[in-house]
């Protein structure tokens, strides 16, 4: 077993054990069942999603506050546009060239969908298709900044262009 897989299994065991501990809190029988469920889940998880680019967990802790601030800003921004009588929208599309691998691209897409004014709609080859609510708000720069942050979360960092 490779070092990367070993490390991923330890990480995932900790995460799934914590989740099981929360779900089964106060029920001793349920907690014992976790001794079967957690290893089975770790096995399934590694089988379905092999560890290729392990996350840098400490970078994730740095990323989380920025993600929370961005998602609040995203919600407020879209609520403002929805409620405003004039409904200020200038929707359009961005084509953003990507160096990211599949997993990172899905993560970036999910994240972009919660950031202000952007929504990922799959990719066309190596180009990420992003729908934007307001072309005047210079959304391209924000998308590139997000992509760089997601890229920095994995190791090794993908090669730059």
């Amino acid at each position: 077993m490779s070092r990367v897989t070993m490390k991923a299994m330890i990480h995932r065991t900790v995460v799934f054990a914590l989740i099981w501990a929360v779900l089964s809190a106060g029920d001793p029988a349920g907690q014992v069942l976790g001794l079967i469920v957690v290893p089975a889940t770790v096995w399934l998880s590694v089988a379905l999603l092999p560890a290729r680019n392990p996350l840098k967990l400490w970078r994730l802790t740095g990323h989380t506050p920025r993600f929370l601030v961005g998602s609040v800003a995203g919600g407020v921004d879209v609520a403002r546009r929805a409620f405003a009588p004039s409904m200020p929208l200038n929707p359009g599309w961005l084509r953003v060239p990507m160096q990211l691998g599949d997993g990172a691209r899905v993560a970036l897409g999910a994240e972009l969908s919660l950031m202000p004014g952007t929504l990922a709609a799959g990719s066309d080859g190596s180009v990420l298709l992003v729908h934007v609510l307001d072309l005047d708000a210079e959304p391209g720069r924000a998308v590139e900044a997000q992509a760089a942050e997601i890229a920095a979360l994995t190791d090794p960092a993908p090669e730059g262009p």
Partner: protein
Amino acid sequence: MPEGLADIATIVLTGIGLVFFLAGTVGLIRFPDVFSRLHALTKADNLGLGFIVLGAGFQADDWTQLAKLGLIWALALLAAGTVAQLVARAALRQEGRE
């Protein structure tokens, strides 16, 4: 925390959450196309659920209830981000076909 204060926090936070859910629904009705509507649904509803989870958290008896509320929000967040991408991609393909 005194019970009165916790109740006020719950009322205020869940109230804010409901405003965002309303915003998501208003956007769903008013926005011009599938993609713009998806923006409204995912972003506003995610924030609405976040505030409702925070508000409900003030009524929790112990940390496991807080953690469960946190899990609910995290799961909904993950699902919203993923589903929004899938719907957008499907809508885009359909548009290309027509």
